[in-house]
Structures are given as structure tokens and as C-alpha cells.
């Protein structure tokens, strides 16, 4: 297969970036998208150039490192698929592929296709945990949890923190990411106790980090590689309002 690639190149945050064109021949349909970029980089380096920087690690769709904006969509054309799981057989031979980094004020650009997603870590640090110390817990089966609820919590917990939801959203909203963590803990008895404080702290931090508001386009759900449902956004909204209304007066 043969492709024309338009790739965003930018040396660092303080200089202007631009699209550069590359032509890549002899691409195998069996190659994953990142292997295709490896192959391109190999050629760039061997001809004396600077390789395209992009993030990746596990290459099996679970670490959340990779994330490229491919032909106008986060993680490319396939649903429920991370960039590293995407294969070249999904693209038409001799077509042009446009590759950009995530674009969001809350994810400043570092180099080429690499952005800084530490805003997500800051949101988790604001409350995305259950306050329990090592050693202070009870026997696991002392608290039975309804299987349907536990499975639903799992559906929220599969978020890989890649940032595709933010990249997909015209408002750069992080509601899907934040709501997944809020909902996972709010549904489980272990996390219920501090659910009200948690949702307030996480939502405040989300706003502070520069993520936008949600206007219900559902683009986040559509492009989430783990298929996380916007129902969790509704669940977070309910948690948020009830915490505001039901909070015991100090």
C-alpha cells in the first residue's frame, strides 16, 4: 500500500508548527498504525532527518499513552479502538492520511504529536480515590455488592485516560473522563461515603484546569476507545447537584 501523510510537526511549544507531507510506499496492510509510523521514522532517520515524536507504550490498547487525531477523528476511523490497535488495512490504498495531536487548551503541545495530559492526573489527585490506608480494611466479602452494580462500576472503570473524549469535544470538555471515575466510586459502597465531596472537588478541578463545559453532542462517547457511555455524565450531574442540595449545613 502507498500513502500520502500530512503530519503536524512542531519542534516545541514556543515555535510555530506546520503540516509536513511525506509519501510512504510498501506499507503492509497487516501493519498497525504505529508500526507504520515506526517505518516512516526509520526512513526519516536513515536519510538524516528528525523522526516524528509520538507517544506509545503498551501497544495493546490499555495504557492510554497513544492518541493521534487521524483524518479528523481521535484514534482514527474505527470505533472502540485505540490508535495502537488500528491497522493499515482500514485505510484505502493511495489515500492521504492527516495526523494531528490532541487539540485542547488543557493539553498543551510538547513536540510534534505529543501533548501534556497531566491535567487529568490533577483531576484525579483532587478526589479520584477512596480514602483508605493500607492495612485498615476489612475482609473483602464482608460487603456483598450486587453484580449488576459492580459490573456497571467496572464499565466506568475501564477508562484508560487517553484524552480522546477531550479531543473529540468541540468544547474540550473532560466530562466523560471525570464522570467515569466519579460514577465508578459513587456506585460502590466503599466509595459512597465521600461521594459528595469527591464530585465537587473533581468538578472544581476540572474547571480550573481549563476544560470546557458539556453541551451534549455525545462526540466523546462516539470516539471513546473503551466505549464509555455518556450515561455516566448524567450520573455525575446527578451526584453533583445532589451534593450541592443535600450537603449537611456546616
Amino acid at each position: 500500500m502507498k500513502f500520502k501523510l500530512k503530519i503536524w510537526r512542531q519542534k516545541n511549544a514556543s515555535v510555530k508548527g506546520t503540516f509536513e507531507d511525506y509519501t510512504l510506499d510498501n506499507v503492509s496492510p497487516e501493519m498497525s498504525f504505529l508500526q507504520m509510523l515506526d517505518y516512516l521514522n526509520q526512513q526519516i532517520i536513515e536519510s538524516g532527518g528528525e523522526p516524528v515524536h509520538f507517544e506509545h507504550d503498551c501497544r495493546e490498547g490499555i495504557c492510554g499513552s497513544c492518541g493521534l487525531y487521524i483524518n479528523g477523528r481521535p484514534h482514527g476511523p474505527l470505533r472502540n479502538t485505540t490508535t495502537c490497535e488500528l491497522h493499515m488495512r482500514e485505510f484505502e490504498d493511495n489515500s492521504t492520511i492527516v495526523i494531528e495531536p490532541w487539540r485542547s487548551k488543557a493539553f498543551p503541545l510538547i513536540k510534534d504529536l505529543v501533548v501534556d495530559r497531566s491535567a487529568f492526573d490533577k483531576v484525579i489527585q483532587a478526589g479520584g480515590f477512596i480514602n483508605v490506608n493500607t492495612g485498615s480494611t476489612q475482609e473483602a466479602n464482608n460487603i456483598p455488592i450486587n453484580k449488576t452494580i459492580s459490573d456497571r462500576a467496572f464499565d466506568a472503570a475501564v477508562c484508560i485516560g487517553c484524552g480522546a473524549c477531550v479531543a473529540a469535544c468541540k468544547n474540550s470538555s473532560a466530562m466523560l473522563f471525570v464522570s467515569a471515575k466519579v460514577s465508578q466510586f459513587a456506585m460502590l459502597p466503599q466509595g459512597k461515603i465521600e461521594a459528595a465531596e469527591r464530585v465537587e472537588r473533581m468538578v472544581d478541578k476540572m474547571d480550573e484546569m481549563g476544560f470546557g463545559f458539556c453541551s451534549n453532542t455525545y462526540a466523546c462517547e462516539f470516539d471513546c476507545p473503551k466505549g464509555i457511555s455518556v450515561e455516566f455524565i448524567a450520573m455525575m450531574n446527578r451526584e453533583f447537584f445532589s451534593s450541592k442540595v443535600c450537603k449537611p449545613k456546616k
Partner: protein
Amino acid sequence: MIKLDNKIPQGPLADKWSNYKSALRLVSPANKRKIDVIVVGTGLSGASAASSLGELGYNVKVFCFQDSSRRAHSVAAQGGINAAKNYKNDGDSVYRLFYDMIKGGDFRAREANVYRAAEVSNYVIDHFTALGVPFARDYGGMLETRSFGGVQVSRTFYAKGQTGQQCLLGTYSSLSRQIAKGTVKMYERRDMLDLVIIDGKARGIITRNLLTGEIERHSAHAVVLATGGYGTVFYLSTLALGSNASAAWAAHRKGALFANPSFIQIHPTSIPVLNEYQSKLTLMSESLRNDGRVWVPKEKDDKRHPNQIPEAERDYYLERRYPAFGNLVPRDVASRAAKERCDAGYGVGDTGLAVYLDFKDAIAKQGEKVIEDKYGNLFEMYEKITGINPYKEPMRIYPAGHYTMGGLWVDYNLMTTIPGLYAVGESNFSDHGANRLGASSLMQCSGDGYFILPYTIGDYLADDIRTPRIATNTAEFDRAEKEAKERIERIMSINGTQTATSFHKRLGKILWDHCGMVRSEEGLKKGIELLEQLEEEFWKELRVPGTADEFNQELEKALRVADFFEVGRLMCQDALDRKESCGAHFREEFQTEQGEAQRNDAEYAHVSAYEYTGNRKDAILHKEPLVYENVELKERSYK
């Protein structure tokens, strides 16, 4: 002369740990605040150690090379985590978990360490549940378990095929909580380049800031390495591409002994190599062997579609050879059996290097819905990569480099041979002997970090309560920084024509062919020779574009590959020295008539721990005898 003292406490096996930890010295809360601890790595063992130490009140500094601590490769563990809860009433106990691990490791692990790992396993499950890890549950709301290779009980807790992700994210959340509290300071995007030793004690590290290229100094009263395994030495492995040996190797160069380097687990069920540009191999969880049946055609070179091969013409070779354990034999046994069939010409697929893992019978019996519930995400992953629907036709699988049982030598306190330097999780060698059983790495990593290290490190730090904060403007830091800079300078100035990745691929191939699933004296000697040639070429022909004082992914790779040459060399030396077959280490010359591993307990019931003597020279071998007071050494049979 280094003397190996494993510090195993006296007394009956079942009481060792509880008696020992009750007598360990403590550091008072007021003094903990004055003590700094560095933790390198944020996988399950590093993040659990860091958050627990933070909860105790130490000042913790944590480092990872990824952009976030949530990305460490523990995240990719699929099948589950073991514990001796006996929820299934099937006869499980701490002793049985201990025995299964000792036997699974082919009697090459320490009794006391393994027993302790089994002992704390139950607390790990309790803690994860409290952290909100959504393990699978039954309809009564209780935790569900499943079976795994090498055991006859059901003790593996799981969260679909994403158990590692859920455990890691639980641990990441407790780490995040400590970061917010200020007890832990997080340093992302850092590679550890060197260890700093002052007056014989580990007192700091040198790191490279991967975004700016800046070489940084960090000091502490003690250093904990939680840097994972070195399976990426094969290039193609199930590990994340960033996983590397460099931090552990830097410690080894500074005097920490490296134990059993040749004990590398080859996982039997990975998706086979599909093309020459492949950068990694994706694992299909061992849990699939609960319901999947492994087979090859009875006829050589049978090119029929698998669904067209009738039952009578299939060879379910694991069930045939190992009727007692069937498809659930341990990983080393399953891998070698697959290789044996493929080498004999029965392999399937274009390359002939694959066997079938078939769910037809399980789907017929349990229904597609139940199978989807258990393994849905794995089936999806398989289809995405291969384009084949495993609900309709069998998966094709083949062994791949996976987990390293070998690692830094540690004593019962998890301390290396350098005082004040600890190694936890996969980066140490201690619990899995010559072969690790499935679902016991999540268990060991979290046990080490949550329930063992926080006790043992206190005993060491109790001597340090009067030691002021360690200064970084000392001659030792100057020297370590200078060495790190010179190493980078050397790599940058080669100016050849070939990429780090191209060398890594060739290096991996040499090791896979000569120090992989089956080894021989001749092959290993050849492997060493080829490695040395390639290493020479590396230092002449490597090309690293860009500069050292910027974000430079090629430089990161090159530094790691440079260390892999030395790791690979030591693997071969160890494999050559160990003239027996045990667990994952299989020497062609030492096998039974039935082709099973033949141990030599009289001469090799020891841990081989190597002392660094400089590149390209034989490392000095130290032996720690393995003493078995509770179990009888037997031939490991799964028939």
C-alpha cells in the same frame, strides 16, 4: 568478597513473617517526616510502595518514564490475581498456594519468601476491594474466582481480562491521594541513569528529564527500585515498548548482584508474529486456557481451514501429554509443548509457527454470552489485530517473551546487596523460582509494595533518624552525573547510519534463537559471539538524530539498547553455567526420555547471583544455596 546473607528468620515456616515483623525496629512518626525515600517506577509494586510509605509519613519521591504514573505496564496484566481465600471451599490454603508456587517455580525459589507472598495475598484482595477495584462478582454479590495454570483450585480473582488495569488504577488512586496530601512528590518523564552511593549506602539517583534533557540529582535516605522486568531484551515481547532494564542495570553496575538472569518466562499464548515490521506481541490471557482447548492437526502440513478438520484428526496435545492438568499446565510446559509440535512440522498458519486455541466446545456448552462475559475484551482485541473472529474459528497462538523471574538479588527484607537499595515486584528475583505461575505477579507486586517493604524498610531507616537530609552537591553526585553525561555524549557522538530499533531487533533475534525456549551449550556460545559482534557494530554504526538537551525519543531508546547488550550477555552466561533444565530454563542436553525438564538438585539447587566486573567480561558468580525444610524436592509432574 561479597557474602550473600539472605536474612531468613529462624522458626517454623508459618510463623517466620509474623514473628519477624513484630520484632523489626520502627521509626517514630516525628522522625519519618525527616526521612526521604526514592521510589523508581509506578507499576503495581512501585505505586503501592510509594503510597504506603507516604501514608506512614515518609517523604517520598517517585519517578516514572511515562507521562503519567497510571501507564506503567502492570496495567496490561490480564487474567487475574491469586489469593488463598478458599472462597470456593475447594481445599485452598496459604500452604497450598505456597506449595503450588514452589512447585511451579520448579524448586528454585526460597521457601520463606514464597510462603510470605502467599500469606499476605489475602490482605491484598481486601485492600483492593476497599480501594474500589471492581473485581468480578457472583449473583449473591460475593467475589468470583477462576482457575489458572499449574493449580487445581480456583483462587484467581479477576476483573474480566483487565485485572492488571483495575489493580493498577486502584493503586494509582492511592498514590494520587498521597500526591495531593504532599507526602509523595511525583516526577514523571524521567529515566534513571545512575545510582549514587555514599559511604557504601544507596543515597540517591541521577535522572534525565526526558522533555528537557536536563540531568538531575535526587537524594534520599533509601532508594527503592520497582522498575519491572527485562523481557523487552527480546525486542518482540508482550511488554510495553518502553519497558527496560536500565535502572536495575545501573544498580548492578554499581554493585547490586543480579540473580538468575536466564530465568525468563516465555508465555504460551501470544498472538503470533504477523509481519516483519511487528513491534510487539500481544498476549492472550492464560485464563483463556480455562475454556479454550489447544490443538494442532494430526497430519503434518495440514492446510485445511481449522473448522474443516474433524475432531478425530485433531491432536489435543496438552490433554494427551498431561491428562491431570490438561490445557492448564504451567506456562513453561505449555510453551515448550507448542514449540515441540511446531518444530515437528505440525504448526499452523502461514509461518507454521502457531497452534490453535479453540473455544468451540466451551461456546457449545456454555453459550456465547457466558464466554463473552468472561473474555469479551480479549476476543475483541484478537479480532482487531488479526481480523479473525474467535467466536467463529479458533485463535492462533504462539509463545512469546513475557516475564523475567530473574532480577536484582534481594534478601528477606527485599534489600539488594547495596545497603539502602531495595528492589520490589518484577525487578527482584525472589518469589517465582525458575517459572512463574499465572496471576502471581500482580499478587507478588502488591504484596511487596503494600505489606512487606513498608515494614522492612523501617528497620533499616531506624539507623538513619539522625542522618540529616542528604546533600546533592557532593563528590559522589558529581561523579555519577559526570559518568551519566559521558555515556550520553558517547552515544550521541557515534554518528553512524543505523537506528537503535534496528539494533534492538537484531539483538532480540539473537537471544530468541540462542537463549530462548530451548538452549544448548553450543547455541549459547554462538549467541555470546554474535552478541559481541553486534555490540561492536552498535558502538560504530548507531545513529541518534537531534541533540541530548531536548525531548529525544531516539536517545532514550539507544541508551536502553546499550544496556540490553550487557543484560543479554549475562543471560547467556547464566544459561551456560546452569547445566540442568528447570522451569523456563530448558537445556537440550538435560531432559528426560519424555522430553521433560531434568533438574540436577545435587549441583544446582541454588540461586546464581552475579557480580558486575565490567562489560564483556564474565561476571563473578556467587551461589546462595536453596534450603528446603518443608517441601520435598520432586520431579515436577503435571501428568
